């Protein structure tokens, strides 16, 4: 049910759309144009690139999984709640987006650190979170989860509530309805939420370096490596950034193109 639009509409809509696309694409294109492509292979052969890539991929995947299994139920509760407070909870969820990442990292340290609000109770159990890979995942989840929850909640609110009524009269519990109807139907929303959250986690820098430190192989993700290399050799940093972009475009393009939609 698609049509070739009329010219007037096309222009009045096409011009701003093109402008939006340009605003986003011009800097990326510049980055690619200014890169020294011949150097990229050797830049990427630097011994700390591979561990950082591996770490980035494992931590962001963990974050994505956490979003999926923890964030989906939260989105579900928010979506079906009609309580006045829901709006405020939703506003609260956006706080990690607003928080300057470094402050977010400090907050995480204050909460989970050895002397932190929660951390002080973990220390006697022999659990220390800062400077570990777990800390990276926590930091990434902290910044990325809101994107996921808000995207999925929005999608879930769009469901026809009568479908739920029918499913329930057919004998489906909350859980079963969620699993067999709601989630399959909001799969595009979940996909875009996951994409947002994963991408945000992949680019996460400020909270990670503050909360988890910058240890090669353990907490040094690609953005942290870029930061370090920027100090040493900006060209390496750009090479790594381009690889980061390539990885993300590839993962998102392939996943969304093939499986998710």
């Amino acid at each position, binding site marked *: 049910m698609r049509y070739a639009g009329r010219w007037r509409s096309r222009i009045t809509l096409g011009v701003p759309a093109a402008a939006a696309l340009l605003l986003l694409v011009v800097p990326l294109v510049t980055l690619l144009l200014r890169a020294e492509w011949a150097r990229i292979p050797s830049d990427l052969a630097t011994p700390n690139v591979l561990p950082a890539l591996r770490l980035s991929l494992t931590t962001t995947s963990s974050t994505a999984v956490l979003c999926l299994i923890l964030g989906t139920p939260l989105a579900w509760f928010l979506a079906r709640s009609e309580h006045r407070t829901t709006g405020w909870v939703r506003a609260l969820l956006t706080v990690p987006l607003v928080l300057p990442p470094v402050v977010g990292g400090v907050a995480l340290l204050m909460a989970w650190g050895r002397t932190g609000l929660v951390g002080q109770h973990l220390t006697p159990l022999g659990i220390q979170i800062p400077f570990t890979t777990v800390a990276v995942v926590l930091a990434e989840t902290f910044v990325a989860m809101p994107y996921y929850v808000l995207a999925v909640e929005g999608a879930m609110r769009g469901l026809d509530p009568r479908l739920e009524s*029918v*499913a329930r*009269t057919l004998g489906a519990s909350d859980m*079963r309805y969620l699993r067999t109807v709601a989630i399959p139907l909001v799969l595009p929303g979940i996909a875009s939420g996951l994409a947002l959250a994963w991408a945000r986690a992949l680019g996460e820098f400020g909270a990670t370096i503050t909360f988890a430190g910058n240890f090669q192989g353990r907490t040094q993700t690609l953005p942290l490596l870029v930061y370090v290399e920027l100090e040493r050799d900006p060209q390496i940093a750009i090479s790594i950034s381009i690889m980061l972009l390539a990885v993300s475009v590839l993962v998102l393009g392939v996943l969304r193109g093939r499986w998710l939609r």
Partner: protein
Amino acid sequence: MSRTAESPRWLDARVRLSRGAIDVDVALSAEPGQVIGVLGPNGGGKTTTVLALAGVLQISEGLIRVGERVWDDGSRPLAPEERAVGLMLADSLLFPHLSALDNVAYGPRSRGVDRRRARDRARAELDRVGLADRARSSPRELSSGQQARVALARALATDPQLLLLDEPLAALDPDTRARTRSDLAGRLAAYDGVTVLVTHDPLDALTLADHLVFVEDGQVTQAGTPAEVLSEPRSAYVGTVVGLNLYAGQGDSHGHVRTADGGLVVTTSPTEGSVWATIPPSAVSLHLHEPEGSPRNAWRVRIASVTMQGQSARVGLVGDLALTAEVTLESVTALGLQVGRDVWAAVKATEVRTYPR
């Protein structure tokens, strides 16, 4: 539907709640195996009643009891999935991501039947609505009538204690509808739960239901067996549905009934006081000139509409008395019955029935 307290019915429901502009207060009761036909004008509260029985809406007062179990008493409603209920709404509301087969199998699966047996059951149900060959289709690929049939199959696949069908046959073509109606009749006869069938089609109601309930503006205006309703309609709406001309009026002992609009109807079966008077459309004869002879009722009327129905025609008349006549197609041609023409309508007094309001 007044019942003595000592014989509680198997289904015993008094649905009271407010929806939009209207207050719904509908009482339904039935024994296992019975079919309650619910009829009424648009916006009367039929769907609201059905949703309350399903547990999708909660009643504010009243009681819903099925067998021994109280489903809702206005305070602690059972959730829909805790009620052994089957629901089909006017919109088919199929799960868009599941095939027709999996839509039908959804109920059995949710109620714990294993995948293979649920699918077998679903296939059988689809077969019964004539869609065995579309089992793999997604709802989007089905026409509206096909979707309605899948939804019907889905509601029937769970063998609920209470089966709620909201206009199940409205989207079906006459052929399929006739087949589905008789198939449904067969299935409902073998079914030991109670069925609540909302319909706008009097034929469905008369052929499928043991008991009819008319809901107008949230209130029950008439309830009874089809025969009772047919013989003594108690609202203008019911009159339209059963195809009788119905008048509220004041009767005297001489057999004269003065209708609310001021018309005069003569009957041989007088009832005094506030009465209903009915005239079967088939008892109305039309004449181009003032009739002489036996009919004691004769009104000067104008033809407002002529519609064909099967092998006969229904002629809508306005004038001294508004009424509908049923005549043969030949009469239409022979008398030149056209809209706007002035004619005489005659009815024998023996054909006019009256009964107290």
